[in-house]
């Protein structure tokens, strides 16, 4: 069962997220719940695998936007770093950050299930 406390324990800045939802906890949790269906991580992984940095940027940017709005900090941090790497079309190893993001997203999705 998803709760504000669980998100807070995980590291989300829930206070900030709830403020952005006009102080409405239930609405905040509903929005966080919708991440369950988000596929941007998978798109990012596929793009990285085929070195399509433009597509990687699109997906990373979109995911970062959502995570930032909901203040889901543990996943936001690697997503933001990936966005900047993809944006600069850096010829670097994206895997460590992708793995980190995957770990955090998995932890989040487990809370949602």
């Amino acid at each position: 069962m998803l709760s504000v406390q669980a998100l807070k324990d995980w590291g989300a800045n829930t206070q900030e997220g709830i403020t952005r939802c006009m102080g409405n906890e239930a609405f905040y949790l509903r929005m966080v719940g919708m991440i369950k269906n988000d596929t941007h991580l998978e798109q990012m992984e596929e793009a990285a695998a085929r070195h399509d940095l433009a597509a990687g940027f699109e997906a990373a940017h979109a995911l970062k936007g959502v995570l930032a709005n909901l203040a889901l900090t543990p996943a936001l941090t690697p997503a933001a770093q990936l966005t900047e790497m993809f944006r600069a079309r850096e010829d670097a190893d994206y895997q460590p950050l992708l793995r980190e993001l995957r770990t955090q997203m998995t932890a989040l999705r487990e809370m949602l299930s």
Partner: protein
Amino acid sequence: MEDLQGKNPQSASGTPHGHTRTVMIVDDDQINREMLGFIIQDGYHLLYAENGLDALNQLRSRPQPVSLLLIDLKMPVMDGFELMQHLREDEKLRQIPVIVLTSETDAEVDSLQRGAVDFIKKPYDMPTVIRARVERIIELAEDRRIINSVETDSLTGMYNKEFFFEYASDMDTSAADGKMDALVIDLDHFHLFNEMHGRAAGDEALCQVADAIREELEKTIGICCRCEADTFFIYCAHRDDHQEMLERIAAHVSSAYESTLHLRMGVCTRTDMVQDILGRFDRALAACNSVRGNYLTSIAFYDDELYRHDIHAQRLVNEMRDAIRQKQFRVYFQPKYDVSGEKPRLRSAEALVRWQHPEFGLVSPGLFIPLFEQNGMIRDLDSYVWQETAAQIAAWRDKYGRVIPVSVNVSRIDLFDADLLDRLNAIRDGNRLPGGALLLEITESAYTEDTEQAISVIRAMREHGYAIEMDDFGSGYSSLNMLLQMPVDAIKIDGGFMRAIAGEQGNAWLFDSLVDIARHLSVPTIFEGVENENQYRMIRKAGGDVIQGYYFSKPLPAEQFEQLIEKDKRESQKNEEGTAC
């Protein structure tokens, strides 16, 4: 896409007229859309779009523009910048204020340069600030629109009608003994000018007229406005002759174009204070309309004759309802003869309405039909004629054992009546008539000017078993291409058109072409207004199918029409006997 109603439509965000303003959020991410929607939902009607194209389609299909657009920049299919570009190119949509949603600091300046009025930073840190900004931007945009639009016409910069009358009344009050004239200037057939030269040239011509009028008014006391598309009102100091002024304005405009624009003017001079300002312009307009299409006279004064004409017209309008109740309208029947065989045979008839007025005697349909078309009463008159006609067809069926189809007119206004089919069906079924008994005549111009509406209604009528005759063919502007797409069961060639081609030497081939066109469409041709042997022969020679006109018979009251039915019956019996022998 979703279309969610804000929770509290009664909040301060409603318009002064009590409507809830509509805001559209354009963002490809559903969570972001919903969060922003949640922040601003109170008091706004919200629309959501998931990319620029989706937004554009929704905006274009709305009759009313939205009050504000909140646009994300990075989106698939069509991004925010491209959407803003499309908005700027669209005359209607460019009025909508845009706030850009972005997390990119460097996109802000770019957004403002591309037409955004403000931006909201992602993530949405200060919801109350966002709400306040949304409210403020809508308020500013509305204020700006009001200031710009209220006083002047956006094309010519002249006063709009309301302000014009306001100022004109002020002039009356402040200069009570100064004599002022109400003038109306109108451009003849301006829609044709638009069609020939394009809308932009048409707008330019209107601006030229406006400039010329302004130039004239610098020499006198007066104000002007553009009242409608191509109609200008002028309120100026009295002078005995306005002709020169009109000629100068016409010369100014014509010098700019190769084709001459014909201007006409109506004048109501201020001889007394009886009429208020609106009344005087009504009279000037009536005078102006009295010289519509008259290329010899371009100026008309409202005088006693026009006054009597107006009063007469008003009386007819006022008395129409009573006249229907008292059955002052009589339906006459003009026969249509099938001339495709050896001998002409009575095939059907057209119902024509006559007004036997107790005081004025027989009033010409040419006089009262346009009046009733103008005020919408034609609908009632049409229903009356349909009912009388259907009852007569039924009476003849019972008396002669034969259904004689009769065509009735369906006016253009009827085509916009949602109850049209119900009205027709009730009349047909009430008289227990078969499908083809009531033929419906629809004028060619209804097909060409209200094409979509006409075609969809006509299709529905045909599905209900009515046969459609396209009336007045040749008086409008149907192209062959249009004709091929039009649902129609017969083409009636306009009498004036028919006489014009019958009268001109060397135009007989046009008869053949008309008949060929109809054959191509697999429908019969009906020639109306046929008056003499020569026309009759030409039509027969060309292979025309049906003839209506004084050559065979004028429109007759039902009792007299029966003699034609009986005569046709005798002819038919004779033929049968002949065949039997």
